[in-house]
């Protein structure tokens, strides 16, 4: 688990692990799996809220629960930068981790694949593989997106690639 900051680690260990190994095509097993996913997400969300560390909102975009959309944000220099978040559950899930997308930032940073899929650290994949199928969506957000935001947003802001929405409006107004 080296390579992660201690906050992330402690948070990760508190997220409940999943047990069912099932993908979206596995029917009832998938439903079970989806239930576990929800429980984990609820626990993670509550944990974040109690720590005053709430940073995303997601919800299933279809009834099967294979597509998820929502928002995520990061506070830098007392300013809140908010981005759209969307991802699909791959067929090979849970062996394969879902690819998180931040379409608003597509083309603005190098740490991103085409289509706004974020590049995860080298540590992510082995860790995920090792813990499959116990890791779920909550884990992916915690391990993947949260560190990425913390690392990339300040750079993007400093380089001027992204602007706070107030600033953007003010500059647009002016």
């Amino acid at each position, binding site marked *: 688990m080296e390579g992660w900051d201690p906050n992330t680690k402690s948070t990760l260990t508190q997220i409940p692990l999943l047990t069912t190994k099932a993908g979206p095509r596995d029917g009832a097993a998938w*439903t079970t799996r*989806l*239930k576990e996913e*929800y*429980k984990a*997400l*609820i626990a993670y*969300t*509550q944990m*974040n*809220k*109690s*720590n*005053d*560390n*709430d940073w995303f*909102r*997601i*919800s*299933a975009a279809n*009834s099967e629960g294979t597509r998820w959309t929502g928002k995520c944000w990061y506070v830098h220099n007392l300013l809140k930068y908010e981005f759209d978040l969307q991802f699909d559950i791959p067929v090979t899930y849970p062996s394969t981790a879902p690819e998180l997308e931040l379409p608003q930032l597509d083309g603005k940073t190098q740490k991103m694949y085409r289509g706004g899929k974020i590049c995860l650290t080298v540590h992510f994949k082995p860790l995920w593989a090792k813990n499959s199928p116990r890791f779920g969506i909550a884990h992916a957000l915690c391990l993947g997106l949260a560190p990425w935001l913390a690392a990339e947003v300040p750079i993007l802001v400093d380089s001027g690639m992204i602007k706070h929405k107030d600033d953007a409006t003010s500059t647009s107004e002016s």
Partner: protein
Amino acid sequence: MDAELLELQKQFESAQQAKSSIRLSERNVVELVQKLHELHIIDFDLLHTVSGKEYITPEQLRHEMVLEIKKLGRVSLIDLVDITGVDLYHVENQAHRVVSDDPNGLMLIQGEIISQSYWDNVAEEINERLQECSQISLAEIAASLNVGSEFVSSMLDARLGTLVKGRLEGGQLYTPAYVARVSAMVRGAARGVTVPTNLSALWGALQQLLQAMDGAGGVATESSFFQSLFNELVKEGEVLGSLRAGVHWTPTVFAIAQRECVDSFFSQNSFISYDSLQKLGISQPVQFLQSRYAEGIPLVTAFVHPSMIEMLDAAVEDAIERGSWIDSLSVLPTSFGSEDASKILLHCDSVQSALKGNKGMILGDSYVFSNGFIKDVYDRMEKEMEVFRLSGPSGVIPSDDSHLVTEAKIRIDSSRSGEVNETVNEKRKKKGKSSGSRTADIVIDDEEIIPMKSKKNQRKGKEASSALSDIKKGAKKDLAKMQEDDLNIPSEDWIMQKILILVPDFEEQGLEDLQTILGPLANHMRPMLINSLKEKRKMLFTENVVKMKHLLDNLQKKLDEVCTVMIAYDCQFIIYIQYFDILVIECYVQCAFLAFLNMQLYEKALDLFEDDQSTSVVLHRHLLRTMAASIGDMLFHNLDMRNKLKNGIKVEESPNSESITLGSAERTSLVKSFPGSLSKKALAVVEALEGKGQSRVVLMWLGVEGLDYTLLACNTSLVLSLSLSDVAGGSIHDFAQRGGRGEVVFGLVLKKLDKKLERTLLHSYRKDLTAQVSAETDPVALLPKVVSLLYIQVHSKALQAPGRAISVAVSRLKDKLDESAYKILTEYQTATVTLLSLVSASTGDEEDCTSDRILSKRELLENLMPALKGLVLGTTQS
């Protein structure tokens, strides 16, 4: 879609919608509090804890501190910092406030807040311990409590008698029982002490005692505790005495005894020595006595009552009036030293007045002499000095001294026995060596006691010679110094002896006192004596100088006849008028030289008789006996005179120094008086003069040796021995030859008679003889002179012929004279011979016809005289 999933979806939705709790960072909180301060919403002080995570109000801090203090009774501020978690600065501030709020109950000491209740507890503890141990030292308590002992004592002071049942003494706590016990010990010890004691020593003893009683566990009691107990006892009057410097305890008993002792001694003896006071323990006797007896007089070692002075005064007055002397020590108690005596004498009225009135003087601290006495002694001493001067300074007692003198001298000698004799002997040994005529010391001692004239002379000679050499060495030194050396000033010892002899009173004093009394007296008189001696010497000296000059003049006159000859050589004899002694020497030289010349002159005449051995011998001997002897005598006499002059002895100048003829005995004695080796040589000469053989020549050497002795004292021995050995084997002729070769002997060039000199000499001689012959009236004496004159005329050689040789001499003239003249001569000669034989044959009988015959012969001779004279004088004229 199953319901459970929906339910979960809803739950997730609601979870996401729920309001997240808001968390503030510490920094935000601190900023908030600051903001509140700024906005005066919080209008009181807030204190930080050390961790920085808490704020605390001062009231709360104080409250916590008070709680803590109440709980523990004694809390250090450091501990409070730990407990409250507030910075020490605030804790201290608050501690001050806490203590000032409750001044009676709390105190802040050395960073600790201590409550009174804590002290009460401590006091109780101490009390318990004290009752167990009967004494505790404050230092111990202070150490266990970690507070200053002063503070402990102040704390205990307040509780003594209430909480702590005991007594605080010199840093020790004691129980009353213990105090009572120790105080009893102190009282016992103090009462037991009867002599002045150093209390600390006493306390030391008591301490040891206590320790022995308490056993090994007993605590050492401070001596200050004893001291305070003792002071209390003294204050209460339980122990009597006086305390000096805190530690010197003098019990009243002792002080009383001491005072009584001093009083009784002083009143009985009217003096008391400081020694005895010191024995009684009075360390400053003078002050003590002066404070007690105001009228007394402090001396160096004793303190006296005026009555003592009165007594001494009376004695001294008596002595001065009687014109005598007194040893004040004999009047004063035996313990008095000479310093005391001198001091007390100054207090005597009579002494003061005597000193002022010049009636007496103090000598040697304790002796008072009246001036009359000293004058008397001095006069007598001066007379003594005359004798001393004459007899020489070596302590020989002149024969005209009284019997007493001799006796005293012997007595003193024997009393000083060995050492004096030894030194004297040593001295004499030295002298003996130089003179060589002495052998045994014993003999000398005998001689010393029985004065001998010859001996004296000898000594004189020696002195003189030594003085002589002194002068020679220190010729450059000034005259006074020379005199000083010469004088041999009488020593103190000598003066002392003399005084002793003159004033037999002193004898009674015993030997030891003799030194002390006579020493100063002699010291006092010595300069005066020396002065008078010097003056006299000076007088005599000048007198002698005149005499010496006179003497020399005479000598000169005597030598006048040759002086004409001598002038040629005078360059060698520069006369130093200032140094008359050298002048004398010069005269010697001249004499010797003259003699030598004459000798040579006469010797020439002897050549004529070389063929006739017997006559030659006779002539030879005659020459020596007449000429040489007279020269020798003259030398001896001069030498002697000179020695005497040197010694400052009066010399009766002989009216006519020409007529010095000495008998053999006289000669011997005179010679013996010469110093050292000179005397020896001179004796040899005298012997030679009377004896026979060639050693007579020594005579010549004597003259030279006399010079040598005075002139060349140092390096003559070699030359002398050389010449003497030569002389022993030589003869006059030999000697003359040696002289003639111009050898340098003792710096003099003895020149051979050269033609010119010979002629002059002969001329003068002839003139002399002619004058004598023409003046001569005695027919017998005329003959040799005429013969001599004839020899000069004929052979131009000076002949000195004795009567016996006259006939031979006359016969020798036979060839040289014409017939008539020779006849007159022979006739005259035979007539003279018959006359002389008649005279010698005559018995002095008046009836005898011989006298008639003598007369007739004499008449005949007298008749012949003009013819004879004419014979000689005529030829001279012609």
